[in-house]
């Protein structure tokens, strides 16, 4: 398939000298579900702002559907839909009015808008709330409405900047299923940024891991995890301090063990076919009279991938606070 987004050597230096995006290059092909996974401040939002014509790049080239992002910004705005990190619906307008307004801004005609608005209300499951003011919507409903407003003109590419940050798990999985549907049924290319491992893993066909403005790894979630090459077995002992060294020795003598590290629960063992190894470990420890508390086995996660490339874990606050509002409450 042909590339719909081509970014080469993109650099963004802020006026205070911060290098927010540090020479990144990547491609997204038409119809693909692509993602940027990285912690806060990695440069994800900055990249999206540049790609959606909101921010001027310092250097590099960005091509969206054959258009140059700076010389042909107007043409790009016609074919992209954008959902920013903040939920930007107008609380004083109803759900329907919010979507309709975006249709007008896209110069669609009235009948076309009406039809599409009805379709979208069904798509995001807001038919029954369509005539209510968005102010009274829950956080998840607002996000869904926001998503619908970004889709009014059937964009070729949908940019989503952390579409589920701050949402409860239920609303999050609802958004996920809408996104998968949009990607599959409408064939819209999706570029998503996220700091949630699970989100990237579940949705993205291909992703780039980004940290301090640089892409550190790219591939499908599966490929990236295979790169780690080892599963992990977390072992918790009844008396960790006393038995730890002996346990390490015993496990090391087993075949196919890559690495043994001290960890929170006591020990973490990395091995290629950890599933098969578990029985051996349990037997070896049992024979030597070391009492086990629990054994957990896990395949490599994207967090392990991130760890491997950056030396740290993505620490996401699962309970993200709603962005603080300005003093004074309602403003006009």
């Amino acid at each position: 398939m042909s590339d719909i987004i081509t970014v080469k050597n993109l650099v963004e230096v802020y006026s205070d000298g911060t290098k927010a995006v540090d020479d990144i290059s990547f491609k997204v092909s038409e119809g693909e579900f692509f993602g940027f996974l990285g912690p806060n401040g990695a440069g994800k939002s900055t990249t999206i702002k540049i790609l959606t014509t909101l921010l001027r790049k310092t250097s590099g080239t960005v091509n969206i559907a054959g258009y140059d992002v700076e010389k042909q910004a107007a043409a790009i705005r016609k074919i992209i839909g954008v959902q920013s990190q903040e939920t930007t619906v107008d609380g004083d307008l109803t759900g329907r009015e919010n979507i309709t307004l975006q249709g007008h801004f896209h110069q669609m005609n009235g009948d076309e808008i009406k039809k599409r608005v009805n379709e979208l209300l069904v798509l995001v499951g807001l038919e029954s709330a369509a005539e209510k003011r968005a102010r009274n919507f829950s956080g998840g409903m607002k996000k869904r409405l926001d998503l619908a407003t970004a889709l009014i003109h059937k964009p070729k590419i949908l940019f989503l900047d952390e579409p589920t940050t701050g949402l409860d798990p239920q609303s999050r999985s609802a958004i996920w299923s809408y996104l998968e549907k949009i990607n599959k049924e409408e064939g819209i290319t999706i570029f998503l940024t996220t700091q949630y491992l699970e989100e990237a893993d579940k949705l993205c066909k291909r992703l780039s891991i980004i940290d301090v403005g640089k892409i550190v790894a790219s591939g499908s979630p599966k490929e990236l995890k295979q790169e780690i090459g080892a599963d992990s077995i977390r072992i918790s002992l009844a008396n960790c301090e006393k038995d730890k060294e002996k346990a390490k020795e015993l496990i090391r003598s087993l075949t196919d063990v890559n690495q043994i590290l001290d960890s929170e629960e006591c020990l973490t063992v990395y091995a290629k076919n950890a599933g098969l190894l578990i029985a051996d470990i349990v037997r070896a420890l049992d024979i030597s009279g070391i009492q086990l508390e629990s054994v957990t086995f896990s395949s490599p996660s994207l967090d392990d991938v991130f760890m491997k490339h950056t030396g740290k874990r993505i620490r996401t606050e699962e309970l993200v606070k709603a962005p603080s509002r300005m003093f004074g409450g309602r403003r006009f």
Partner: protein
Amino acid sequence: MTLLSDTRYVFIRYIRKLVRTPILLFFSLFQPILFLVLFTQLLTRLGNFPGILPPGVGYLEFATAGILMQNAFGSALQSGNSIVADIDSGFLQKMLVTPMSRPAILLGRLTSDAFRVVIQTAIILGLAYALGAFVTTGVIGILLIFFTIAFFGLAWSGISLALGMKTRSAETVFAIGGVITFPLLFLSSALFPISFLPDWVQTVSKFNPVSYAVDACRVLMINGFDWGTILPAWGVIGLVAIITLSATLYQFRKVVS
């Protein structure tokens, strides 16, 4: 033309917001109405002293034009807040990623400000009429008053919009707005006849654009179509508008790019 249709949609959005938040209209009308009903009562006897007010003119009639201007100030200052709210919420960005006309974002806001100030002016004139002060120049005079106040309101929206985009803080807009508004109002012919004021205030008042705008509305209410007062007022308001709206445009360009 996308400029016109986009302006229309932005205009409709703001009017909808306004109509659906009647409390805001109430608050911005509260102060002018308080002045109209109470303040004018305090000074009704001013007419008993000869030579202060023009002959045959009561204080209510005299002060209405000034109160209209106070009303224009109030609503113009809320304009800047609305742009701060749109920047903060990301709504401005949401508009900017669409192909819509950029100037329409400002024009829609400004026309809705003008529309709003006209509605408020109509309410105040209606109330003044009920209290016994009417516009001698009739319907055409009322329309000219609408025009003058809306024009003045736009010039002042320019200040609050520029401040709002520069500082990104609704509080600052209100604080600075308040600091500018009251001295300008008091140091003008808005609430007292110019001859009644101390010499230095008279001097300041001559350079105060508020005086010109008030005088134009006042002659339309009391005297008639005195073009020698009306046209210079429009000229002065135009001058202020050029300055404040240029500042707005400059700040808007910075926000947009």
